[in-house]
């Protein structure tokens, strides 16, 4: 390892080029704009979760899928004796990269340009969509093939292209299922994790032209149907759009890691390749990939190595796309970088391990989060990209059990960021809420032994409602009702332990 934590320049807040800055005072860095992209839901998490929890098929599909992948991951991670050191290396590398992100980005631009590519800077989703749409239009085509990419889902690129009369064909199998089913992705790695084989068969039969009418739900048959559907499009396409898992600043190399080989087809066959990448995805040097290419496949698909790793730098005459564009997207990332607690969320390599172990995600699925980034990482990333008030229920969509932190290959302390964002939300309220009034009063009581004893005695009076029964009545007013709807509440005792003790020990503490 060439990077040590001492290299981290945490005293400076790094900025992407062009981000507004005034001396050392931030003028409120721009967050992802409203009205474009998929970072905001139309309902709060508890509301959306309530419906999802009632969907038995969804619960069964998700329970089965997450348990399977969890087990696979645990087995292959256990094989590596130096897993914890690898995680620490991944985490340190990311922190060091973020501390000089501006310099690395400019180096990346120089290297990509030197190798015949063109770099575009997009402040936000709207700008990125406009750049890509113009690039596609300039080629004169009206359809593109797409490699699975979270960045383009985030900015709503498919919708933008469609509005411009350009058809975007998803080529990742799971992404294709979602697209054909007119559905939304619910997982960052397996966007159709909420669908089972029978449901996929039904979608294919309904939407694929020229599909075999005897299609069964056997995985092989389904894959073959997708294959022949896609093959046609690969051969026809003149433009491909991809995301990137990594970009190496010193060499201008981009990397896409995948399992199916469909990405490889898109990255090699068309004449024009447009890669849309969040500014946080880069690593400074080539050897840095060594760490991440070990961490990523074991964490995401539970494989020792992923089947396809495609890498390219600029344009190679006579080999692959001859026109290459890299669109670097901010869309709120610089604002995330400015938050010293929250910026860790930018270290994410989108492996999805935290989704797969999350007890909340496992039950509600990804749609309840409203954003393309669901699960634990989504609960900390989406509110930061949009500004916490636009996704205020997400930081609370966690029991803080910590399973995500344990599995994260770059050791992002997600529970601590969740707690931090809850505070940011509370502190952003200008008017008192019923909750804040209650918590402030409770804080006052808990800071003064005399008031606290009075409060405890008052709580003890709650036992009168129980009329001698060991549990309180189930029908209590809100917010107690949110507990008692499904759980009994024990009847409080007449005297607290500390009061009993003081009485027995003559007031001695």
């Amino acid at each position: 390892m060439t990077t040590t934590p001492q290299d981290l320049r945490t005293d400076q807040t790094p900025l992407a080029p062009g981000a507004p800055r005034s001396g050392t005072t931030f003028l409120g860095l721009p967050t992802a704009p409203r009205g474009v992209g998929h970072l905001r839901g139309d309902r709060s998490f508890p509301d959306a979760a309530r419906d999802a929890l009632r969907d038995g098929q969804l619960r069964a599909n998700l329970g089965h899928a997450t348990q399977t992948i969890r087990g696979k991951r645990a087995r292959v991670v256990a094989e590596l004796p130096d897993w914890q050191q690898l995680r620490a290396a991944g985490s340190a590398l990311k922190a060091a990269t973020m501390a000089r992100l501006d310099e690395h980005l400019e180096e990346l631009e120089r290297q990509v340009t030197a190798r015949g590519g063109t770099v575009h800077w997009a402040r936000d989703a709207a700008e990125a969509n406009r750049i890509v749409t113009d690039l596609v239009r300039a080629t004169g085509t009206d359809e593109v093939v797409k490699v699975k990419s979270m960045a383009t889902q985030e900015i709503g690129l498919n919708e933008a292209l469609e509005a411009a009369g350009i058809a975007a064909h998803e080529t990742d199998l799971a992404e294709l299922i979602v697209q054909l089913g007119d559905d939304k992705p619910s997982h960052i790695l397996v966007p159709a994790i909420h669908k089972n084989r029978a449901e996929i068969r039904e979608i294919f039969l309904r939407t694929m032209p020229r599909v075999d009418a005897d299609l069964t739900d056997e995985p092989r048959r389904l894959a073959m149907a997708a294959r022949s559907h896609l093959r046609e499009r690969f051969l026809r396409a003149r433009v491909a759009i991809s995301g990137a898992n990594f970009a190496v600043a010193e060499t201008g190399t981009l990397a896409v890691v995948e399992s199916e080989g469909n990405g490889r087809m898109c990255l090699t066959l068309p004449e024009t390749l447009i890669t849309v990448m969040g500014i946080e995805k880069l690593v400074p040097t080539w050897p840095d990939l060594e760490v991440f290419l070990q961490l990523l496949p074991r964490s995401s698909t539970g494989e020792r190595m992923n089947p396809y790793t495609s890498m390219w730098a600029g344009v190679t005459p006579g080999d692959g796309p001859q026109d290459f564009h890299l669109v670097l997207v901010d869309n709120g990332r610089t604002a995330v970088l400015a938050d010293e607690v929250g910026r860790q969320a930018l270290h994410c390599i989108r492996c999805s391990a935290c989704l797969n172990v999350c007890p909340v995600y496992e039950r509600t699925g990804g749609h309840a989060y409203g954003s393309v980034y669901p699960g634990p990482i989504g609960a900390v990333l989406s509110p930061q990209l949009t500004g916490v008030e636009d996704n205020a229920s997400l930081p609370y969509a966690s029991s803080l059990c910590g399973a995500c932190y344990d599995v994260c290959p770059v050791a992002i302390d997600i529970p601590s960021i969740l707690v931090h964002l809850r505070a940011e939300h509370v502190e952003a309220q200008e008017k008192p809420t019923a909750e804040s009034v209650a918590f402030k009063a409770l804080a006052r009581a808990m800071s003064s032994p005399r008031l606290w004893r009075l409060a405890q005695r008052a709580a003890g009076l709650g036992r009168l409602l129980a009329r001698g029964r060991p549990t309180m009545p189930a029908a209590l007013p809100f917010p107690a009702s949110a507990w008692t709807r499904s759980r009994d509440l024990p009847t409080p005792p007449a005297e607290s332990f500390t009061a009993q003790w003081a009485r027995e020990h003559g007031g001695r503490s």
Partner: protein
Amino acid sequence: MRVALFATCLVDTVVPQVARATAVLLERLGHEVVVPAGQACCGQMHVNTGYRREAVPIVANHVRAFAGAEAVVAPSGSCVASIHHQQAMVARRAGEHGLADEAEALAARTYELSQFLVDVLGVTDVGAYYAHRVTYHPTCHSLRLLKVGDRPLQLLRAVRGLELVELPGAESCCGFGGTFSVKNSDTSTAMLTDKMANVLSTHAEVCTAGDSSCLMHIGGGLSRLRSGTRTVHLAEILASTEDAVSPDQTTRPAVTA
């Protein structure tokens, strides 16, 4: 040793028998127990709900109440984890560096019950007797933040008469999560349902853990179902002997009404 008992706000107010059992146990092991009267709360609920500024005076009260204590023991993995990982952090963020240093120093002398017994006192057989079929739920903060590991199991295995049965899916969260249980009560209940299904599959009479908060959640669900399986804190089991079950400990089914 002179041990200061931090009952925790929840135990003190709602399930005092757990603090009582902790005191009885430590005294039986030959230690002097003191219960500082000024104690209230560690501040965790405020911090985790977003009221980190409001938590600062709570932390200050805690540090004041336990000033000078040689060792502090609490029957809660969650509260001890908060004392270790959150108190100094919120104080420092509020610019209270003196308080943060004091909180850090106090945290270094603060132990969760099973850690104190096994690591500090070096005992696993506390001389308890508890003739029941028991399953153990490792609460998330004990497991992942404090890393108490198998210490509670070592203690339970040494209890005479106790039949320990393994809990399937033990490491999954029960769904309590503090205010999560109320703000996201549907998801919390879905998680609880699966935890209860696993608890009931063991046919244990008792589900135990090191946190009264999680036990109140699991026990509240089991009681609502009139299941007969009840929740009992680890301290209550360890305090039980042939002569007496721990004072106030309920050996009746949780619901008699």
